[in-house]
């Protein structure tokens, strides 16, 4: 099946700005699904609110476009009810880690078999370029006209500490790597977190001297490096890409099945 068969052409054109990275993530996700050969009927994509969340409307899966920050909670309900379904949750950085931060860490902790794809563009795009918990210090945004003073989260470290069994980082510049990582994430039996740097030239780039999409993609190329590379030793500022955690841990739905068996056994006695 061609990856184009996974989209709902009826609802195009999409709403994203020219040069936005989210379309690249969309294609990467569909390529990964195609590569894995998952039946469209077995995929449920759940999203919250924001530019990234609009992905669900364009894909020919069971799609649930929910409320701001709560996509993982909705996805948890779907997954527990039908554990055989493949759950993919695309989120923006504000959606996942500001308003949805609590649901995010608890989904990691439960290690429930859901793949969370965080499209990190370091800004609230839909509402017009306000700073996010991923903007970092010294950035400009429509609510930070004098620059930001807040530290940013490290999504990888946060997910790792909270207990996710698969944690990776990539960028829209590294599209092949992105597809490979997404394949691994979706295949992992447990909670998978994939952080993808995605460019927002309209707001983040324009306010932070990365005016064109090309500038932003070059920024991803020049400022990241594969995990454990020699270049990192010379340039400790470089952000590492790749798979940080890929471990086998008890998965929530499988553990709950054991509880069901235990409960049934207890009542038989």
């Amino acid at each position, binding site marked *: 099946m061609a990856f184009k068969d996974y989209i709902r052409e009826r609802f195009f054109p999409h709403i994203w700005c020219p040069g936005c990275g989210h379309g690249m993530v969309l294609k990467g996700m569909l390529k990964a699904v195609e590569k894995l050969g998952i039946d469209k009927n077995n995929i449920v994509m759940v999203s919250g609110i924001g530019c990234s969340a609009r992905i669900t409307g364009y894909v020919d899966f069971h*799609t649930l476009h929910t409320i701001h920050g709560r996509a993982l909670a909705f996805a948890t309900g779907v997954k527990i009810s039908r554990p055989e379904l493949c759950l993919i949750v695309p989120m923006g950085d504000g959606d996942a880690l500001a308003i949805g931060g609590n649901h995010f860490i608890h989904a990691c902790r439960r290690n429930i078999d859901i793949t969370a794809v965080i499209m990190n563009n370091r800004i609230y795009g839909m509402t017009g370029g306000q700073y996010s918990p991923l903007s970092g210090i010294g950035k400009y945004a429509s609510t930070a006209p004098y620059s930001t003073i807040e530290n940013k989260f490290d999504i990888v470290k946060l997910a790792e500490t909270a207990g996710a069994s698969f944690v990776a980082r990539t960028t829209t510049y590294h599209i092949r790597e992105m597809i490979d990582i997404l394949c691994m994430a979706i295949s992992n039996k447990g909670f998978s977190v994939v952080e993808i740097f995605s460019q927002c030239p309209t707001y983040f780039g324009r306010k932070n001297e990365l005016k064109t999409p090309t500038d932003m993609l070059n920024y991803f190329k020049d400022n990241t490096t594969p995990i454990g590379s020699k270049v990192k030793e010379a340039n400790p500022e470089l952000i590492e890409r790749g798979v940080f955690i890929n471990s086998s841990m008890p998965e929530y739905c499988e553990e709950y099945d054991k509880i069901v068996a235990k409960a049934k056994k207890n009542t038989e006695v």
Partner: protein
Amino acid sequence: MKRNVKFVQGNEACVEGALYAGLDFFAGYPITPSTEIAEHLSERLPIKGGKFIQMEDEIASMCAIIGASLTGKKVMTATSGPGFSLKQEALGYAIMAEIPCVIVNVQRGGPSTGNPTHVSQGDVNQARWGSHGDYAIVVMTASTIQDVFEVTIRAFNIAETYRTPVILLFDEIIGHMREKLILPEPGEIPLVERMRTSVKSGVDYHPYLPREDGRLPMSDFGGKHRYNVTGLFHDMWGFPSTKPEIVHGLLRHLNDKIINYAESICMYKEFELEDAEIIFISYGASARTVLHTVKNRRKAGEKVGFIELQTLWPFPYNIIRRKCANARHVIVVEMNMGQLTRTVKNAVEDHRKVFLMNRIDGLLITVSDIRNILRMLQGKGV
């Protein structure tokens, strides 16, 4: 037929009702005075192969049941005051996306943290208007343990029939009180199951195109039809739209599908209304005090009657107008600042004959409270 008699709390009767109705999935968060519902379901649901999860907060619980409902399951969450406030946004989502689900709010004193272990009926209007935007919703309540059981089953039936969230608005007294519950045999009370679409696989399915009667047959997530569900105004495919005719049509549908069926949705009980000069209207725990008083006053020959509301919303305007037409006084007894009294005033022809009799100190309205009001209206003094 051998009857299964139990002696249980209201919260447990709610659990029994939900299980009888076919509950498959519950998500909740601990909060007084509703916690026993979660506790009992954590034990009972896995036995029947159902799923229970304690989520990270009240919001997540509400979201999780919506997700589960979309896979074709019967779902419920339970909470109290502050938790009910937290659920409001996701509740609005369930209304917009037309997701069948049951939300229990065992009311406690408020606002804010309020009076967690004491009774109040202060969420009556929040249950109706709590989420933003224009919508209609079904809110039901009960005053006995048997009624808690039966109303809970009915809540599930209404949720499935009208594809809507239904709120069970109990109170601390009813939730915690123990009383007799007679469990009917399976099949004795009819159950409404999910209406699924008959549209075949591969044929264009319109998940949000209502039939003439307003009903929307569903397709389970994971099933043969793949469609979009959103909290945005949406077209017949569930795809976001801002077209004025689509926005108008959907908003009308969301309201009409409940309001137009108010008479068949509404449940109430009436006592001694025929010649009643004074009619009481009440619901929940305070209805017990009123019934006690009315029974006693009737024995003493006083012309008093009583309407116990079991459906608070949609409000049975026509029924109340009709039943109260000949009464000299209508006394609404509730444990709040008159939340339903205002609505009763709108329902009757002469609003001046409607009085509020309330108590807002966390204690149940007593028989002497009501008797004193009655005597004053009768010109007898307390």
